[in-house]
């Protein structure tokens, strides 16, 4: 698989250097075949019911008795109670939910830290403490000193943090002064436990004004990053944006705002939202992309409405022959261009759905445009359009074929869309590099091109070899024979 050691010059001269070759290709393959054969032949004389000796494995490969296997098994046995499900459906109305205890606003966060609540009834702090689940470590690690003071009422910030870290309940409400709160935060940060840092941040967020919180976090980077992460997690976009603005992290602010569009499903609303993103402090490059994103969706909405109408009216041939597979909304630009080349190729530049209009609006490079148009027209087998794509006239009126993407690519795309041999042949002939031309012609069975090229190269051996590949008694064979017998050609081999 190694790139063979070649000196610099040799490398530059050869177009393709070896990177992944099986040195003994055939040997390697035959080895695999060999072991396959051996395996197969063994089956013949081994009893069929040998499976019992192997580990029992269900077909899906889960060893019988593994957890994921058991989930299916035990869940299956539970007897899918259809009746029960039906009942649920009928009961699962709004009124059913209404009877359930709703989250009450009086459950402040502090109550949560004070202890477990059971269906609305508060437990006192001491109740909660007496039965807090004690964490058992797999190996009994030594107990930290702080734990022996569990029942004390005035834990220091560091004790409090330590308790939080062990998943124990404790009240943060006692920390009233800013200084205490910040000390609490610093203790949490020094523990590196994200869970605890977040818990303290939730407390601070609730008990400090936004301005003070931001100001203090600005000089505490670790805590600040945790707050940002937390706000993203709970999707408190508003506070997050305020924070970025405060910190003057404008680009992050812009991106974070833009990110929100992902959760908007309705195209019209999404479009309106994208509009609010234009002009935000993105980098210059990104600004242009965001603007394009908005413009594209705006276009797509217009095209979609129009085409849906046309399609359901059933009067337009192209939609009848090739019904649309999906809506064009939210598709990438190149896909949209393809769509427009497929359904709206001949429209004048003035319409929103015309390919030329898209090309101009989004400054699509020539290469990209030709590639996409070619794929779309080839799919429709509109060979005339394909031809026109590559025909240029010079000022004398002569026509010439030119492809910004290289004709080898054109051939590949045409072949992918199962173009007939005559068409393929025409473009294979336009490939400049002789080796590439020969390769493509052979690959796509453009016999004439192969034969003519061999003749032009005066490569008798290759022509002879190719003779064995064409059908016996075919026109190609005749043509080859005629050339081989010709005395006009001075063969090089």
């Amino acid at each position, binding site marked *: 698989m190694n790139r063979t050691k070649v000196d610099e010059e040799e490398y530059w001269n050869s177009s393709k250097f070896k990177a992944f070759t099986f040195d003994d290709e055939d040997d390697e393959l035959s080895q695999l075949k060999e072991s396959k054969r051996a395996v197969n032949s*063994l089956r013949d004389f081994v009893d069929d019911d040998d499976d019992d000796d192997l580990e029992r494995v269900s077909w899906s490969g889960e060893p019988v008795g593994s957890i994921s296997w058991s989930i299916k098994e035990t869940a299956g046995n539970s007897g899918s109670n259809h009746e029960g499900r039906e009942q649920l459906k009928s009961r699962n109305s709004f009124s059913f939910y209404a009877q359930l205890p709703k989250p009450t606003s009086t459950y402040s966060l502090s109550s949560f830290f004070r202890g477990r609540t059971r269906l609305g009834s508060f437990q006192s702090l001491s109740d909660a403490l007496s039965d807090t689940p004690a964490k058992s470590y797999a190996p009994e690690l030594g107990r*930290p000193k702080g734990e022996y003071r569990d029942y004390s009422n005035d834990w220091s910030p560091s004790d409090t943090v330590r308790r939080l870290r062990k998943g124990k309940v404790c009240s943060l409400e006692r920390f009233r002064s800013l200084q205490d709160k910040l000390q609490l935060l610093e203790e949490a940060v020094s523990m590196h*436990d994200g869970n605890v840092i977040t818990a303290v941040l939730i407390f601070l967020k609730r008990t400090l004004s936004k301005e003070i919180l931001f100001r203090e976090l600005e000089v505490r980077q670790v805590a600040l990053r945790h707050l940002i992460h937390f706000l993203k997690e709970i999707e408190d976009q508003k506070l997050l944006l305020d924070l970025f603005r405060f910190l003057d992290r404008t680009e992050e602010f812009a991106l974070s705002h833009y990110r929100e569009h992902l959760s908007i499903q309705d195209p019209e609303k999404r479009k309106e939202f994208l509009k609010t993103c234009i002009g935000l402090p993105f980098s210059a490059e990104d600004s242009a*992309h965001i603007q394009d994103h908005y413009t594209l969706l705006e276009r797509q909405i217009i095209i979609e409405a129009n085409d849906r109408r046309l399609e359901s009216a059933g009067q337009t041939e192209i939609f009848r022959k090739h019904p649309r597979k999906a809506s064009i909304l939210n598709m990438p630009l190149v896909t949209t261009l393809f769509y427009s080349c497929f359904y709206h190729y001949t429209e004048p530049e003035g319409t929103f759905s015309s390919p030329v209009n898209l090309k101009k609006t989004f400054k699509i490079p020539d290469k990209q445009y030709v*590639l996409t148009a070619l794929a779309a027209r080839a799919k429709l087998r509109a060979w005339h359009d394909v031809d026109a794509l590559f025909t240029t006239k010079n000022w004398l009126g002569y026509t010439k074929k030119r492809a910004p993407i290289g004709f080898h690519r054109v051939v590949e795309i045409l072949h992918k869309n199962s173009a007939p041999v005559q068409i393929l042949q025409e473009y294979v002939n336009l490939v400049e590099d002789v080796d590439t031309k020969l390769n493509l012609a052979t690959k796509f069975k453009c016999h004439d091109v192969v034969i003519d090229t061999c003749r032009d190269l005066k490569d008798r051996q290759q022509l002879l070899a190719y003779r064995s590949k064409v059908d016996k008694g075919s026109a190609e064979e005749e043509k080859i024979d005629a050339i081989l017998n010709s005395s006009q050609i001075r063969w090089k081999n």
Partner: protein
Amino acid sequence: MAAHLSYGRVNLNVLREAVRRELREFLDKCAGSKAIVWDEYLTGPFGLIAQYSLLKEHEVEKMFTLKGSRLPAADVKNIIFFVRPRLELMDIIAENVLSEDRRGPVRDFHILFVPRRSLLCEQRLKDLGVLGSFIHREEYSLDLIPFDGDLLSMESEGAFKECYLDSDQTSLYHAAKGLMTLQALYGTIPQIFGKGECARQVANMMIRMKREFTGSQNSIFPVFDNLLLLDRNVDLLTPLATQLTYEGLIDEIYGIQNSYVKLPPEKFAPKKQGDGGKDLPTEAKKLQLNSAEELYAEIRDKNFNAVGSVLSKKAKVISAAFEERHNAKTVGEIKQFVSQLPHMQAARGSLANHTSIAELIKDVTTSEDFFDKLTVEQEFMSGIDTDKVNGYIEDCIAQKHPLVKVLRLICLQSVCNSGLKQKVLDYYKREILQTYGYEHILTLHNLEKAGLLRPQTGGRNNYPTIRKTLRLWMDDVNEQNPTDISYVYSGYAPLSVRLAQLLSRPGWRSIEEVLRILPGPHFEERQPLPTGLQKKRQPGENRVTLIFFLGGVTFAEVAALRFLSQLEDGGTEYVIATTKLMNGATWIESLMEKPL
């Protein structure tokens, strides 16, 4: 079931037993019959430490996957949710609890958070009005899960993103806790080395935790001689390249999850000829891959080009063994032959499977596109044409190859050029946004923030210096009988493993210059041992190094480390730990911004 965990230099079954014990203790706390509702993601990792039988012994009668609406019927006393601490899962749990039939028998609810209770999640449960419904809310610190005799993983998918994008150190905290657990079981590790910001943090946490647990002196004789902590962002290059070991390629092509792989079923058609063709399986074939399987242990770390010959040799050996039956004449001989049959049949089954897998992989590796992609990768890694727009990448975009593949290649180019020229970067960006959608701006920014895709600053490309000093590119690679770790990528020696290799001999002092170019500090700490526990190494005895990859490790890197462990004069054996077993594709995916 897990004998292969004890094959290595360090018996990892001890760890497995410890976590199993903890699980049993929790189950026994919820007295009576129980049903477990699983966060599906967890079944994989749990499968590595426990079978259903263990749960059954502790009165687990039913198991379900966590789903919305109502819980399936189950006549049990306890319902236990096994979940990761994630907000969206809390919403589902709340839905389950709220739609519980009030008239039915009263059932007790419990939650087991893995690996950690989260105050944020409990707050969410409270907001949804169900927190009070749970009797036990506990955590199960399944930090490091033993995968193989020398391999541990936290299987924390988001670890890299959390550490390097969100600067959330929670997973580092878990890593440190996992390391404390290991030290409690295998003794204090006397020396800690590290490179990178996160490595520094983890070392700090460990030292701090040790200080806090001074109550009991660890009296276990240390098994590990040293610990090497490595940040993934010290070596961003390696995972981006396509792995070329057998196991690495299986992972690249089919994806290995918790040591299982799902394969297309056609090649594994039922072998009984009678009912062949009748019902061809349509469900993917699932196979477990670990060193408990003798053949797999032998070939997993080989370069794929060396696998074919091993398989063919095995086939001959097995054929010969079966032929022996003709020579068995006496009753005694026949008896002996029969007694060997089970082992032979297992070997045959294993050979059949791996021959099929090798064929599947070969179909891919011999394809033109694979060749082209590898050519480009190897060009980049050997420093060729990294500073201009690459034609193959352009083609991939034009043909709309999977975005992950495109991003992986561009990132590789960027890393091998210490950042791309602004013009090149802008070109790629525009092509990607126009072809795959503008919303990927967000993903591109993530990659930039992680250092994977960035503009070159200062106009200096440091990669050649790093490549030459660390000998990352080797022109003469022996894939069949390797002499250097570079065989795992057919030429490229993984930077991370090279660092480990140089640390053990001759020491990092020899590469100070390169270490300064790579991001983050490098350091060394000592954890003093009481005199009684200090080790006196016998002459010729290898050191054992625990190497911890913070942010993920690839199978190819694991293979390279195993190669070093097996070297006769290597002097060091490695046990590998990581936050996640990954490859370039899963890594990039974890950094992509997805629609909500």
